[in-house]
């Protein structure tokens, strides 16, 4: 299993750590050299420095042989672009994009991204399931 993670934010790093512990091979992409150094110090050289929404950077990260690409950049637009390049240019089997905006999450799904994750939605669902009997479901 080879996974490319675009973005070395706290979520990207957590997911990378967990995937490596589960036996996956992971490469990360970030355009910030300080973050690159930080992550490389902790995990060994796994970060490719560059813009993860460019074909060239994704190629340097070996996206052509990836089974899964996870886009954790700050904007839904950047995550869309990284996933679409992975899917259509490099034929990656599964693409996952984080989405911060509920309206755009729907659009990302329509644009062929396999898994769109809005963390706030997941949190709300989890809240509803854990305190369900208390909350008004429908007015």
């Amino acid at each position, binding site marked *: 299993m080879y996974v490319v993670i675009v973005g070395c934010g706290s979520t990207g790093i957590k997911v990378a750590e967990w995937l490596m512990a589960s036996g996956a091979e992971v490469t990360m992409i970030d355009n910030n050299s300080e973050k690159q150094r930080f992550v490389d110090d902790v995990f060994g050289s796994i970060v490719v420095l560059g813009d993860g929404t460019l074909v060239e950077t994704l190629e340097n990260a070996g996206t052509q042989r990836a089974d899964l690409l996870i886009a954790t950049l700050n904007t839904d637009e950047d995550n869309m672009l990284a996933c679409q390049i992975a899917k259509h240019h490099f034929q990656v089997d599964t693409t996952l994009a984080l989405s911060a905006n509920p309206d755009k999450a729907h659009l990302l799904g329509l644009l062929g991204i396999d898994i769109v994750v809005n*963390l*706030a939605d*997941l*949190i709300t669902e989890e*809240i*509803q399931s854990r*305190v369900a009997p*208390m909350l008004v479901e429908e007015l």
Partner: protein
Amino acid sequence: MAQIGEDNENPAIQRLKRVAVIGCGSYGSQIAVDLSLSGNIVIVIDKDPDSFSVLPLNLVENSRLVTSIGDGTKEVSLRQAGVQDADLFIAATKSSSVNLMSGQLARHLMRIPEVICLVNDSALVPLYEGLGIKVINPDGLLMDIIREELD
């Protein structure tokens, strides 16, 4: 919970539940809007008045979504916002430590029956669940989805 049971006998007069959300960032604002749209009265507290600009105006104008400027780790801010009457308290700022301090203040000093904190370290979940607080780890929810995909 007894009075809630009584309310439930007649769903037509079921009391609206009051929910307090600390932090109006990307998580807090969406949680507040979702819970408000599903029929609860939601109070959102944030230190930064500009953070409220992302909330839909119609909900704010109907007072279904009430905003209050304040520090979620200070009891005076929470009382000012009317949090003491809340049925559910959700600490959803970017900082796990702020969420845990705010959540414990709400649970143990203000006796709010249900308290949920967002915490980005799964190792802390058992510790704080033991202290009477429900803990949600957002990154853990993402990993559950990836795990399902890989299986």
